């Protein structure tokens, strides 16, 4: 089943099929020691490297402010810049298509591939095409789509899902990758060599040989893009391996599926993002390869270029004054690597192609909060603020999280598929509201609070591991704290007595 089959029930698109809500998925993940070790190593390594790469630039804060301003300005005039982009791309020999949702984008791409007569396409890693489940749609139409980024290949061969924006197979060990290659490569093309070891060099070589035969014969490629320049019609892809260059250069037909928020006004604007994106994502001064192309260039690269501009919930997100800042995201993944929740739960728990803090704000906005996983995502955070601090376009992720939590618990206005609607308060938060009411009652009655605290201290040995009733949801994902031997206020009163300050004794114990 693809996302397209479940739209009617859950809004423009649903969560990845079979994904449980975040707390349940996270609980499984935190009990997987291999996953936790992999994630800890990866996030801490990239985090450290990134900090060094950023510290090299004395004007980082100014670049960040400029990036934020460019994106905000573009979003304010998005209609104007998209129309300008369309004119520029068309003038440069490309064709522009507009897709309201995932289903339409998939239909357009399928039709374009069918028109070429090809039965297979090569793909450069593209989150937009993952978002719309393009591979599944092409497969239904009898077209094989081959992912060519090494990590994406690992994910595809493993019938798996990406778990990180930048290093999608970060949850896999070299041993697992070796086994996958040995078992699966032969079913799709050139098999892995006999006696394949688990050295990264050997594994990369196996991937090189396996994919090269696909690159050399490919007639059609599908890509995303990191940026589109309205002024010139130029598209930009940042990558490391060269698979992007292969897809963008060798085939006759290139189809790029790009979210409408990826446009920037001028070619000059790229000077900001060419500095901030590589340093924030791979912690390099510059990624090994960046390709920029403007329509078609006679005799150099594809002779047909199609750009599919994708909405799929982005205009709904734009209609939210607080939430729209998530559309500034340039997909660098810096927020994943600093997030204490992502580090422990891993990317799959987010049930979306956009994991981590940015996924927790982007997915419920793009997809709506109709499904349990989307309604749970804004709560998948400690609100520690580390994500905002590292964001190269200064997205205030905690602010959006709190905003979305409020909407989910209390309900409120939102835009779905272009229509203003009122979201009903979500089920499942009744216990939270009841707990808050109980807290208010207790805090208003200090005597009752004191009696309760003393009772709790005496009953320490009877402490259950999990709370009964509505409190169970809380202890499902958290350890129940051990009650102290005596209430703080009793301890304080005792301390005061020992200090021989009798005049305060009568006050101690009541606030």
């Amino acid at each position, binding site marked *: 089943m693809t996302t397209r089959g479940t739209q009617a029930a859950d809004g423009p698109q649903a969560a990845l099929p079979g994904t449980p809500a975040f707390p349940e998925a996270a609980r499984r993940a935190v009990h997987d020691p291999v996953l936790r070790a992999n994630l800890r190593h*990866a996030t801490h390594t990239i985090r450290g490297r990134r900090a060094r790469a950023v510290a090299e630039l004395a004007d980082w804060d100014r670049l960040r402010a400029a990036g934020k301003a460019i994106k905000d300005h573009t979003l304010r005039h998005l209609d104007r810049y998209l129309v300008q982009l369309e004119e520029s791309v068309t003038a440069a020999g490309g064709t522009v298509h507009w897709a309201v949702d995932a289903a339409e984008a998939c239909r357009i791409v399928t039709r374009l591939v069918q028109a070429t007569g090809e039965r297979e396409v090569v793909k450069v890693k593209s989150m937009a095409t993952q978002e719309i489940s393009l591979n599944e749609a092409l497969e239904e139409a009898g077209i094989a789509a081959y992912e060519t980024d090494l990590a994406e290949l690992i994910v595809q061969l493993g019938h798996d899902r990406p778990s990180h924006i930048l290093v999608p197979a970060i949850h896999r060990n070299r041993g697992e990758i070796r086994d996958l290659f040995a078992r699966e490569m032969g079913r799709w093309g050139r098999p892995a060599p006999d006696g394949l070891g688990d050295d990264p060099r050997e594994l990369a070589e196996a991937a090189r040989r396996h994919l090269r035969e696909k690159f050399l014969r490919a007639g059609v490629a599908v890509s995303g893009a990191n940026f589109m320049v309205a002024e010139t019609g130029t598209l930009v892809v940042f990558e490391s391996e060269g698979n992007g260059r292969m897809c963008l250069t060798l085939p006759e037909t290139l189809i790029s599926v790009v979210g409408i928020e990826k446009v920037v006004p001028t070619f000059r604007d790229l000077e900001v993002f060419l500095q901030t994106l590589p340093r924030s994502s791979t912690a390099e001064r510059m*990624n090994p390869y960046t390709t*920029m192309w403007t329509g078609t260039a006679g005799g150099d690269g594809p002779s047909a270029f199609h750009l599919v501009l994708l909405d799929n919930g982005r205009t709904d997100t734009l209609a939210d004054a607080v939430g729209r800042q998530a559309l500034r995201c340039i997909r660098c993944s810096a927020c994943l690597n600093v997030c204490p929740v992502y580090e422990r739960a891993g990317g799959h728990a987010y049930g979306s192609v956009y994991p981590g803090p940015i996924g927790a704000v982007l997915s419920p906005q793009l997809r709506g909060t109709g499904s349990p996983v989307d309604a749970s995502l804004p709560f998948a955070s400690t609100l520690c603020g580390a994500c905002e601090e590292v964001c190269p376009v200064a997205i205030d992720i905690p602010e959006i999280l709190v905003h979305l939590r409020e909407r989910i618990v209390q309900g409120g206005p939102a835009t779905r598929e272009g229509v203003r609607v009122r979201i009903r308060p979500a089920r499942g938060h009744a216990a939270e509201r009841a707990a808050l009411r109980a807290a208010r009652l207790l805090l208003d009655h200090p005597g009752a609070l004191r009696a309760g605290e003393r009772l709790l201290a005496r009953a320490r040995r009877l402490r259950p591991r999990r709370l009964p009733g509505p409190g169970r949801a809380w202890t499902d994902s958290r350890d129940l704290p051990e009650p102290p031997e005596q209430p703080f206020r009793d301890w304080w009163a005792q301390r005061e007595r020992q200090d021989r300050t009798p005049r305060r004794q009568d006050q101690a114990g009541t606030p």
Partner: protein
Amino acid sequence: MTSRDVILARIRRAGAAGATGPTGAEAPIPRDYLRVHGERTPAESADLLAANLAEYRAHVHRTADDGLPALLARLLARRGTRTVLVPAGLPLYWLADAAATHVPDRAAATPYEFDAVDSVVTGCALAVAETGTLVLDGGPAQGRRRITLIPDHHVCVVRVPDQVVDSVPQALERLDPTRPLTWISGPSATSDIELDRVEGVHGPRTLDVILATTPTPPTAAPHTQP
């Protein structure tokens, strides 16, 4: 209504255009970031370019212009190169000492033909010192994008100091966005397996960069933006 109309109408209804600061006016984009990070002499810029390229495991060589033929011959011989891809506009004296057979960059050639070639030699449009980046724009001595992608060995000649800029903003100023642009920083690489960096997944695994100190002949002038 077409999907285009639907999307544009939704954007206009989203009310983002009215979102402005407290003064009601839209703040200008702050461009107070640096045009260049530090002051350098041309020689220092070339040194920085060499250091940054080397850090990403490109092999950097330096020569005066008249040393180019011997150096190129040596680099190709060291790899055992028998065939070398030659883009249009490559100064022929560069390869005068090399024994390898020339394969011209032809539009009609299939990718398979280039896959059988050992090395490719090109010039570039410019190089960026601060990031260790070569930029190719399909101009003279650079050829089509695929020729620097398919062979496993790429030798790129950068004319120093004319083709070296310090920073990314300086580079964009000198480039023409309507040309296909390829930015290359070190050889192809991946860190996808347990974050171990491995050179060469799909692109060339070996990148030799020659910084050639030379007076500029007219063919190697960078393309300036109108």
